[in-house]
């Protein structure tokens, strides 16, 4: 029952190779952990039941001066060392794998998307396609996505649990995160790193669709969406909540917050706005997506 319940949990039911490798690692470690828990719990139950001080306990079962056993102590030092080694090897190899695009889509170049966090919204810029979306994301399936993460102001963390683990968005520097969706669908994405009042609402939906549909969507944005002007972008950066938007140009034309030049772009423009409260209640603006 526990296992069937687990398979419905987002992290243990990934929709892409990155999440898959992390799930495998988690389940692999879980086996060891369950083993440890079973051993310790049974020993514990045995000791507590057997050696309670109750009437008519056998006196020869009580050894108050028993104070050590070198062999035993060596054994229970070596076993944890072995377990840790067994866990370290796949951890390290997975770590290095995660710094590269997933192998299953080696035949194509990864799709580059600049994911920029600003209090409390997401900008997704597609430099090759020349389009930009706010608070929602479309990606093709079976192709690696290279997210170039940065932030216009506070530190955030891009997390799409159905596709894989997260990385931080920070201003003045760029971090890179590879993800990939193998199954089409709509997934939840969010900022998982607390960054102030609107934090809980800094979420977005990920629309994973096959290549043709994705191209159609790109074309429709390119043709129908308005161009993003610097003025409009600057006002969008102001701390607050925004709905979904799409543009047929990107803000990278005038600022990349992942570079040293772009680091204080937002803060100098909206210095006073950061101190103002939104007075955000549960239920308000909830359905902006």
């Amino acid at each position: 029952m526990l296992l069937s319940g687990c398979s419905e949990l987002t992290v243990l039911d990934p929709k892409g190779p990155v999440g898959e490798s992390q799930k495998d690692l988690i389940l692999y470690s879980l086996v060891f952990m369950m083993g440890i828990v079973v051993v310790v719990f049974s020993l514990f139950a045995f000791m507590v039941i057997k050696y309670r001080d109750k009437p008519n306990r056998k006196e020869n079962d009580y050894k108050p001066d028993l104070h050590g056993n070198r062999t035993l102590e060596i054994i229970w030092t070596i076993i944890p060392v072995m377990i840790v080694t067994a866990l370290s090897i796949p951890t390290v190899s997975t770590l290095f794998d995660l710094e590269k695009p997933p192998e299953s889509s080696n035949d194509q170049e990864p799709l580059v998307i600049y994911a920029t966090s600003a209090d409390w919204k997401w900008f997704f810029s597609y430099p090759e396609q020349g389009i930009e979306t706010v608070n929602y994301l479309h990606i093709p399936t079976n192709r690696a996505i290279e997210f170039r993460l940065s932030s216009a102001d506070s530190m955030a963390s891009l997390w799409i649990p159905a596709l894989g683990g997260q990385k931080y968005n920070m201003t003045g520097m760029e971090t890179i995160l590879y993800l990939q969706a193998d199954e089409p669908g709509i997934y939840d994405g969010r900022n998982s790193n607390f960054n102030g009042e609107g934090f809980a609402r800094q979420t977005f939906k990920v629309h994973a669709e096959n290549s043709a549909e994705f191209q159609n969507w790109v074309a429709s944005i390119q043709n129908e969406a308005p161009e993003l002007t610097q003025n409009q972008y600057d006002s969008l950066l102001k701390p607050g909540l925004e709905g979904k938007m799409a543009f047929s140009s990107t803000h990278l034309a005038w600022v990349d917050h992942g570079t040293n030049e772009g680091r204080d772009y937002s803060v100098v423009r909206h210095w006073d706005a950061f101190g103002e409260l939104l007075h955000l209640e549960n239920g308000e603006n909830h359905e902006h997506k």
Partner: protein
Amino acid sequence: MANRSKRIPIQHVVGYVMSIVLTVLAAWAALNSNLPVIWIIILILALAVIQAGIQLFMFMHIIERGTGHAPWQMIFHGFILAAIVVAGSLFTMSFGFNHDHNDDGGHEQHEQHEQE
């Protein structure tokens, strides 16, 4: 103490002269020598450690047994921690990030790691 009865504290004078010499040597190495920068840094840091040792052993009597072994052990651990803090910060704060003046530097580092 041996030097308690002496009028002139030889140990202090020697320590003083040595620290002056070491300082001049470090300044010369940094300002006038033609060594590669990395060697200069290693050299002057080594000189600094020797000078710190002079202060601790010759001026502060760190191994004097007035209060047991704890003083030098604590200072020793203090220096280890200092090394961890400085080297650890540099290690974690400069690897793998793509940032600052040179946009490509981080990428190169990424690739270097991949090759390793």
